């Protein structure tokens, strides 16, 4: 778990990258282009065309064979914690949450679930004011400056991936210093809905999402369906071959929501997990100092 100081460094680095538009190595190198942020296409979000004018279609592959719910590191799931630290996610939201599902023959598997980035997204369909919308890249975002808090998107989401600020959300002071953007939903506002934003701004700047960075087992791959590549920060894979050869599936495929998050079946066997060893450590929110008048609640 990062200390407060470490946390600030993350922010500082992140803001620097945003300001300068400098990309890291990783994915952008593979994609061949790191395009600066800030090229806003109206209010429909940010679209960063590659040098060859192709639109990115960001996708995520989570290799469940490598996910042991962080049992081996003896901590709460690190993807969740990295996400919380990177986005100042208010307690009790877990934009990426590690669910423990039972296996058919006994024992369990861990399934980290970020927003599934449905292409036929039920949430954006029902929003009465267009506060939640899809960018041209296919990323589903929320404009908290427009959200009226009717929560019909939460009724519509079949993956339990939307979170409401029931009270004043607890966030560390740094969050309040940041400039608000739908792509980076800080500071959080009471009475509005939040969720995983797929870190598309970071991807555009050539960096992996916080969850993929945080995973000690490199189980989370992030990539571009347009280019057909993905990386977990350690290796770069041919996205389509990777999906097919490992029989990837999507959650609740039968609903026709067409998510952009794929799963490779498994129960952590690649990192030596015994499926009968159940349970994971509870997620903790790192900051102690929070917004004045903030409250926490249970989901």
């Amino acid at each position: 778990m990062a200390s407060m100081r470490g946390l600030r460094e993350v922010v500082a680095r992140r803001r620097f990258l945003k300001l300068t538009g400098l990309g890291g190595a990783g994915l952008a190198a593979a994609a061949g282009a790191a395009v600066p942020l800030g090229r806003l296409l109206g209010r429909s979000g940010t679209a960063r065309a590659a040098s060859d004018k192709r639109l990115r279609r960001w996708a995520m592959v989570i290799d469940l064979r490598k996910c042991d719910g962080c049992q081996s590191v003896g901590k709460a799931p690190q993807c969740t914690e990295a996400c919380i630290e990177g986005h100042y996610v208010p307690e009790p939201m877990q934009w990426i949450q590690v669910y423990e599902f039972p296996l058919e023959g006994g024992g369990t598997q861990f399934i980290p679930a970020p927003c599934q980035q449905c292409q036929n997204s039920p949430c954006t369909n029902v929003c009465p004011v267009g506060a939640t919308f899809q960018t041209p890249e296919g990323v589903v975002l929320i404009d908290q400056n427009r959200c009226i808090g009717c929560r019909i998107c939460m009724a519509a989401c079949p993956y339990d991936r939307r979170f409401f600020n029931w009270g004043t959300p607890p966030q560390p002071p740094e969050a309040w210093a940041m400039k608000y953007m739908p792509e980076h939903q800080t500071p959080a506002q009471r009475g509005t809905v939040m969720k995983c934003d797929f870190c598309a701004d970071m991807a555009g700047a050539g960096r992996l999402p916080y969850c993929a960075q945080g995973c000690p087992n490199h189980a989370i791959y992030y990539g571009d369906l347009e280019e057909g590549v993905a990386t977990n920060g350690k290796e770069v894979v041919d996205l389509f071959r990777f999906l097919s050869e490992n029989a990837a599936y999507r959650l609740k495929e039968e609903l026709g929501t067409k998510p952009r998050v794929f799963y490779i079946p498994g129960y952590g066997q690649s990192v030596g997990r015994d499926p009968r060893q159940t349970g994971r450590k509870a997620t903790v929110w790192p900051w102690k100092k929070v917004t004045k008048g903030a409250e926490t609640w249970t989901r």
Partner: protein
Amino acid sequence: MDAVRERAEAHEAAGVTPAWRERLEGRVLAPLSRTSRVYYAWIGFLLVVLAWAVATYVHQLQRGLIVTGMRDRISWGMYILTFVFVIGISHAGTLLSAILRVFKARWQLSITRMAEFITVVALMVGGLFPLIDLGRPDRVLNLIFYGRWQSPLLWDVFAVTTYLTGSTLYLYLPLVPDFALCRDRLGKEAPRWKRWFFSVAAAGWRGTPRQRKALERAMNVMMIVIIPVAVSVHTVISWIFAMTLRAPFNSTVFGAYFVAGAIFSGVAAIILLMAVLRRLLHLEEYISGTQFKSLGLVLAGMALVMVYFNLSEYVTTGYKMEAGVPFHFHDLMVSYLAPLFWFYVLGGLLAPVLIMAFPKTRNVRGVVVAAALVLVAMWIERYLIVVSGFRVPLMEYQARPYAPSLTEWSVFGGAFALFALIISVFAKVFPMVSVWEVVEHRGPEPAPEAVPERRVIPVPLPAPVPETGAAEVSES
């Protein structure tokens, strides 16, 4: 002039003697000019309840929706289900004054006014709930600035506002001759502003044949127009649920089911209001056993329609037991929500049918008891739809319990106080019985005790007015 004389003679023949008419007008207009102390105490009580509700709502504005029992996994609760319930009540007016009028029934004419009031007031009160439920009520105008017609919530906004406009108009039209009556009849005992109001609202009504024809025509148009609007309102309200990907809401009968439920609860509401007002305003002569029994039969009939919808719903989904349905059924029928569910089935669906089935209980008291049961059961039914729908876990987690908080109960109570307050004030300003229609179409009814076993058949009348002839002749 001939037409006027003919009509007067026809009425005389039907028993509309000047003395009878005098009594009717006196009874109906009495509350408009005299007000008792009890009335003021009652208004005071309602204002206190309302003030408490407003205070709790202000508290909710200050702290956010955390003061409610809702959370992420049960993200709609008391407010939305009460919205569904109260808008459902509004269908009383449409059923009685439009649907039954289309079918040329006449027994309901003395209660249409009350039913139309219920419609308008229910829409005004019910329409507040989605706003109370908003996390950011300060941004409600975004619905206009950025409204997306693709969203079921916007359909609700359109439907409810259209319905409110239409039913206000439909309430006003038959009021015009009665306003004129008030203008002409109410003397110095009524406050000055009321007399001024009546003379303006009567819009120069003199009862000339031309005016009568215009009114008749306008009412006929509104009567037809308001029915599809009413049906659309509760259909799209059901669609805010049916458009989601949750197993218990995943239903094609939801629209029709909600409309049926709306009429069902609306009939119950009108029966209760009728019972209260006829006692308070001494209208026993005009609102008698006939009206109660007829509405009781409508209530029992609607209960059977609801049984049919519930069976269709539960048998088709229960047969297949798709994902989420086993949990839903268990939750509803055996565990968490079972007491409420079985109250709804036994008290709300079975009891009214039984009460109306036996001659011994088929009386005013029985009908009122049935209506009270139905009203409570239908609120519970809305509760079950919303809460049980949200309780089915979408991922691997423990289903969350839901209990409305004190704030939610207070706002709920406040809504009913507001409802009662508006009705109480209206009862002092508007004649609660459509005098001219009772005179025109009905004539005096024999005293109820004289013919206790009378069946629900409209009183045959000679056709008094040539221009409404078509409607009348077929009756006799």
